């Protein structure tokens, strides 16, 4: 979903701003995805569908039920986290030993979410109300306030996750579970509860992406498919289990995509293929991704 920015004329500015925002969106999703993958070993293909569902939840609360934005965000966050945790606990966690089954369950859940939204809202494009109107002068570029807001929200969330993992009191148990679930148990760390907490954080990141970035473009029930491919690519490209890597990769992929769209508009349909080509090339030279470590005992 590429967003044209009115008022900015220079090409590199377009690429920079859109690359940052779309990269931020991918980074939030990739981060949530790799958190739950690392901590609970659940490859949750439904994760981008949570993003889509969050956008529609926000749409429902703010535009159908006419709540104000604060209420909308709080309700959406609560609702989506609840939904995510219930799905994890009831459907994914019980079968997580069977990785391929988890994979399919996630995928099929995503399809179910998509169909449900198609039934309720139909396939047409909708847009969320923008949080901020007006524009801002930055040097000689004019940027809409919504873009500034989205960018800062993305950066704040990434910082927040860093804080959670490395500074807060949940950091150590979360990382301990991610590194060795069995031994974490022996230290008295309730591994299943930490997984639920991580699931909540992961869904919250999807909600933030939907609340901040989705208003820039349009929403529709199929909007999770492209991020699905990108998120998978980013997590692999960055190296499984490396949070830094997946964030970097998300931005790289976004810039590749955005540059292609702006520099060669005629070839925009190739954006998926080009991202894939980039990933394939990197993997051929670095088989474990940019920052990957092979997970011990899981070769």
């Amino acid at each position, binding site marked *: 979903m590429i967003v044209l920015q009115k008022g900015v004329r220079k090409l590199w500015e377009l690429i920079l701003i859109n690359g940052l925002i779309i990269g931020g969106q991918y980074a939030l999703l990739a981060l949530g995805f790799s958190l739950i993958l690392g901590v609970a070993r659940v490859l949750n293909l439904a994760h981008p569908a949570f993003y889509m569902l969050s956008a529609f939840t926000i749409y429902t609360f703010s535009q159908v039920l006419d709540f104000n934005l604060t209420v909308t965000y709080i309700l959406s966050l609560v609702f989506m986290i609840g939904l995510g945790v219930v799905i994890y606990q009831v459907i994914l966690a*019980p*079968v*997580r*030993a*069977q990785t391929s*089954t988890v994979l399919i369950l996630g995928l099929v859940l995503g399809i179910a979410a998509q169909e449900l939204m198609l039934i309720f809202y139909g396939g047409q494009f909708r847009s969320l109300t923008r949080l901020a109107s007006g524009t801002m002068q930055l040097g000689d570029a004019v940027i809409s306030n919504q873009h500034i807001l989205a960018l800062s929200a993305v950066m704040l969330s990434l910082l927040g996750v860093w804080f959670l993992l490395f500074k807060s*009191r949940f950091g*150590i*148990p979360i*990382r*301990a579970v991610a*590194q*060795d679930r*069995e*031994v*974490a*148990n*022996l*230290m*008295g*760390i*309730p*591994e*299943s509860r930490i997984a639920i907490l991580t699931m909540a954080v992961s869904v919250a990141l999807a909600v933030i992406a939907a609340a901040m970035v989705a208003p820039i473009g349009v929403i529709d029930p199929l909007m999770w498919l492209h991020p699905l491919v990108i998120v998978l690519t980013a997590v692999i490209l960055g190296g499984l289990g490396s949070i830094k890597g997946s964030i970097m990769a998300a931005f790289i992929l976004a810039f590749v995509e955005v540059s292609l769209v702006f520099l060669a508009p005629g070839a925009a349909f190739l954006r998926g293929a080009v991202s894939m080509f980039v990933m394939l090339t990197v993997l051929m030279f670095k088989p474990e991704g940019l920052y990957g*470590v092979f997970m*011990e005992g899981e070769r």
Partner: protein
Amino acid sequence: MLLEVKDLSVSYDMATILSGISINVQDGELVGLVGPNGAGKTTLLRAITGLVKWEKDNRRGQRMGKITLEGQVSFMGEQISNLSADQIARRGLVHCPERRRPFKEMSVYENILAGAYLLKKNSPEFKRLLEEVYSLFPILKDRGRQISATLSGGEQQMLAIARSLMGKPKLLCIDEPSVGLAPIVKRELFERIAAVARSGITVLLVEQDVAMTFAMSNRNYVLSHGRLVSEGTSEVLLQDEDLRKSYLGL
């Protein structure tokens, strides 16, 4: 009685790993558990501290490797067979796993913090325990910021024991601490373990080095092929010629 295991049986698929094991550990003892490779010592510890149950729960839906676990384990008079591993650790039955397994990407200090999950950080109790652990293993204090994957084997073993001690164990189960250590380091480590035992923590020690284990233990169990072969104080066991030849290799 601190720990009482009754008729514990474990099987993976159709292979019986442990059959009808009953052991007990009294308060304040240092109990050795020895036996040849593959005897089931590690499995016994894992079954006691809830890891076999955890593994079983985490294998739901898998076709291969069906685990069965039977028997009773009670700790300080309480049935713990149905508790999860983290609840068992909470009750003061702490397991220091085989192959050390530090949290590799975390620093030494963070590993210790992970071990102290049950304590409030910076509480007086935490500080006291940390002091104790540091006086037992001074090297850990200097290496606080080092990533634990880069520690040497012996240092990793000390870290593993330190981490377990931070969980305020009443009973500490240590699995093969001496693997891969130089003789001097090994002796030193055993002295530290003896010191831990003297400080009032009951220890259940799984070891291959029978001589050193017997030298410091109050009582021992000998396990082979998933069955208890013998039990008793070191002196009694060492007098049994058959046992020495066929199981202990002394």
